[in-house]
């Protein structure tokens, strides 16, 4: 093993890739040593994903050479890359939910061991060797996020990959799951595999990587060893400037209750409880953070408060009014703003211009409408206001929403939801997938609004964001609120433990 550890597994030299109007990559040089964990870090839009797609054969570079194990190669498709022992685990899992683990793994590689008993024992063997603990016959839809990721890694190993690309593997994991992923990666490294780890979470990178390459604006801007660089230096290298932080100032919490839930239970069509007996209150000027592993009922809870789901039992009050039976429109008209979890699916009409998107959710109120008619002029000038105040970078308000970057789309949504003097803001992952600049801006808007007496319900998978912005944090696990924490004193590790139920035995 030690002999191969000194040679280079992958050498990328002078890689460039242009799309119409954009230069995604230029002058990229990376050397990845065999048998190491190599981290590639950079902000969103720094060109990491494009580079990895080039290495995996999804896209062809316009310039530059790829050398794998000492041989120069050109990849026409992922199949060529797989043949060279390169495997990729995508950020968004490529799994068929309604098929079993075994079926997902053998799909496309049936020639290796068929799809029957031989394949099953091969899958079981890999699972045991690397400590994955997967049942080949489990349906993927019944698996948690961590297990799904292991299925993806298993898929790659099953095809004999020696070089494994992981695209932001920790984005969907809680700290404990990250730990177990890292344990898996260390075993893989010990077995002689080479791992290319893409991330923008610096702590994790410093924890797991042997080498670090930093990318900014499409090119490689630096290399580092984790033991000779600090988190702060890495961050500055990555963004080219000072890192923002989500810290709030002094408390602005009042004693006036804005939203209160009493024993709210939500069930799905089959009668399974998604949220059970949830009780909490949010005061004016208060940010309540909800921490939880995805799929533990927080999405359903948000949909219930905005009125997209029905309450099975319990009461929801806005101020002093009981709004349990209200429809979504009535709730919005009463002053609830909503930043949805998935802006492209729920927040925007991607192929409509910005001013039409401004009207969404406010289609009954001025300045969007005049009587029964849409007020184009009113909506247009208010959109101009949002574009200016919230720094939405767009050529014009006639541009379609799809043409904006994720951060600008999100700023438009935040601006829209803040208009019309809301009394309550539900912010579901408000900075997910936006770059650092937009993230800082969105944090700023939330803080400003809180100072003006807005009540905010914040759901986020980014624990630093939750701790930095919230006045109070509730942890949700399997649809129940299982613990309240003070962000002044809690650590991400404490939260992670509560989110996974690791402290249930002691509590």
């Amino acid at each position, binding site marked *: 093993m030690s002999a191969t550890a000194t040679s280079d597994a992958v050498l990328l030299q002078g890689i460039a890739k242009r799309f119409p109007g954009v230069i995604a990559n230029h002058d990229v040089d990376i050397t990845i040593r065999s048998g190491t964990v190599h981290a590639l870090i950079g902000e969103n839009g720094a060109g990491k994903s494009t580079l990895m797609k080039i290495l995996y054969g999804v896209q062809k570079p316009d310039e530059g050479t790829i050398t794998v194990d000492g041989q120069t190669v050109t990849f026409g498709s992922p199949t060529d890359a797989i043949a060279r022992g390169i495997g990729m685990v995508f950020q968004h899992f*490529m799994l*068929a*939910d309604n*098929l079993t683990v075994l079926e997902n793994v053998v799909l496309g*590689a*049936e020639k290796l061991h*068929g*799809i029957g008993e031989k394949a099953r024992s091969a899958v079981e063997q890999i699972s045991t060797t690397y400590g994955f603990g997967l049942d080949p016959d489990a349906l993927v839809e019944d698996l948690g996020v961590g297990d799904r990721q292991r299925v993806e890694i298993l898929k790659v190993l099953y095809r004999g990959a020696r070089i494994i690309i992981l695209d932001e593997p920790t984005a969907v994991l809680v700290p404990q799951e990250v730990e177990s992923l890292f344990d898996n990666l260390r075993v893989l490294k010990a077995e002689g595999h080479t791992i290319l780890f893409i991330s923008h979470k610096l702590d994790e990178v410093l924890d797991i990587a042997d080498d670090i390459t930093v990318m900014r604006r499409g090119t490689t801007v630096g290399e580092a060893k984790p033991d000779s660089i600090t988190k702060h230096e890495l961050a500055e290298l990555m963004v080219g400037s000072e890192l923002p932080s989500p810290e709030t100032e002094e408390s602005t919490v009042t004693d006036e209750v804005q939203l209160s839930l009493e024993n709210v239970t939500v069930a799905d069509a089959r*009668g399974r409880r998604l949220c059970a007996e949830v009780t909490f209150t949010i005061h004016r000027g208060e940010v309540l953070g909800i921490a939880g592993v995805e799929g533990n009922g927080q999405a359903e809870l948000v949909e219930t408060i905005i009125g997209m789901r029905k309450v099975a039992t319990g009461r929801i009050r806005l101020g002093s009014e009981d709004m349990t039976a209200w429809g979504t429109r009535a709730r919005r008209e009463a002053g609830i703003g909503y930043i949805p979890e998935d802006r492209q699916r729920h927040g925007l009409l991607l192929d409509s211009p910005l001013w039409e998107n401004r009207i969404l959710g406010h289609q009954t109120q001025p300045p969007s409408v005049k009587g029964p008619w849409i007020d184009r002029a009113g909506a247009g000038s208010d959109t101009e206001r949002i574009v200016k105040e919230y720094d939405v970078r767009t050529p014009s308000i006639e541009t379609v929403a799809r043409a904006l970057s994720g951060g600008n789309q999100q700023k438009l949504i935040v601006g829209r939801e803040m208009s019309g003097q809301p009394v309550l803001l539900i912010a579901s992952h408000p900075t997910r997938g936006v770059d650092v600049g937009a993230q800082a801006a969105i944090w700023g808007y939330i803080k400003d609004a809180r100072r003006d007496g807005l009540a905010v319900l914040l759901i986020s998978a980014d624990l630093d964001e939750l701790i930095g912005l919230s006045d109070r944090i509730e942890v949700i696990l399997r649809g129940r609120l299982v613990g309240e924490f003070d962000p002044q004193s809690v650590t991400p590790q404490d939260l992670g433990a509560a989110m996974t139920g690791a402290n249930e035995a002691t509590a």
Partner: protein
Amino acid sequence: MRARQLNHLWLLISLGAILMVSAVRILTGAHGIDSIGTIRAAIIATCPILMAAIGGLWSERAGVVNIGLEGQMILGTWGAAYFTYYYGPWVGVFGAALLGAVGGLLHALATVTFGVDHIVSGVAINIIGLGASRFLAEAYFTDLEGGGIKQLTGLETPTRVTIPGISDGAEYLADKHWFLVSDLASLVGAMTTDLSLFTVLVAALVIASAWILWRSTFGLRLRSCGENPAAAESLGVNVYRYKYAAVVVSGAMAGIGGGFLALVSSSGFTTGQTNGRGFIGLAAMIFGNWRPGGTTAGALLFGYTDSLQLRDSTSVHALLLIVGIGLVALALWRLRQGKTTTAIVMGALGVAFLVWFLTTDSVPKEFAGMTPYIATLLVLALAAQRLRMPAADGLRYRRGQSI
């Protein structure tokens, strides 16, 4: 483990159904509800629906909604008639498959290559199928013996077989009208008397389809295209090719169903003789939750009600009692699951059927004709909540769209 539990459940439900039918038969004296003749007619009515449903299964498992089944079936009826007239019934079956496959190819071309909405393309194929069969019939059948501008009768039918000893014995027992014994004997009798080999072929095709789709590499790849085509593509599966294969086979299966109508159900071709069976097949597939076993059960249910309308009216009247009891039983089951609303609706419907049964002596003929469609609606309304279709079914897929 999961599969075995499911098998037990199906076994229990089948047994319960036979017991209930038997009890109703004794109670009402309507021995026609499961006589050998009725069951034979039910099997013959089931086969075309079943083939359409299996066709739908192929297509939808690969993610293409095929409501063009009806049109492909119609093409199949013409293909069967034409090829049987010149080359005999077995070539006729092949001809039915061929014409159906052409309809499937058209659907694949529109939906897979050109990305046309599946419903729009399917509706177009239904219209094209009907028009083409009329045109072809007028062009090729008018001057033939037994032919006309809308029909071709007197076709040779596939061989029928009777298994001598078993057939007679079963008929003897069935005529005794004993509880349960006679009902089971009717089943055996229907399957051993005058059985068309085409029916055997249909059964074989269903079993082969289930085997290929769930036990072969080809089937796994095909199903992956219906669940997550982007994932399949990322693993080197040629999604377009598999979708094409699935939709063409789907058309061929529906075509064979049409051929069965022309050669076995009526021994002749008439334009428009499918009469919506392609759609019923689709409903049977949905009822069966996109699984072969359930699909077969759905087709049998529709086939049975379809055949009963042609039999005596006392049987249809007795059917009211069966439906009433069935609905009340379902309502109680739902109530136990805590589904109060569904239980109340079902229970009320069930009671209504029981009252109808008790206060009348016969069912109007016009209503009897509607039975299969009412059954379709009821069954789908009651089953719809637990159905799980392939995740990417009906969605347009473009290569490289998400990686």
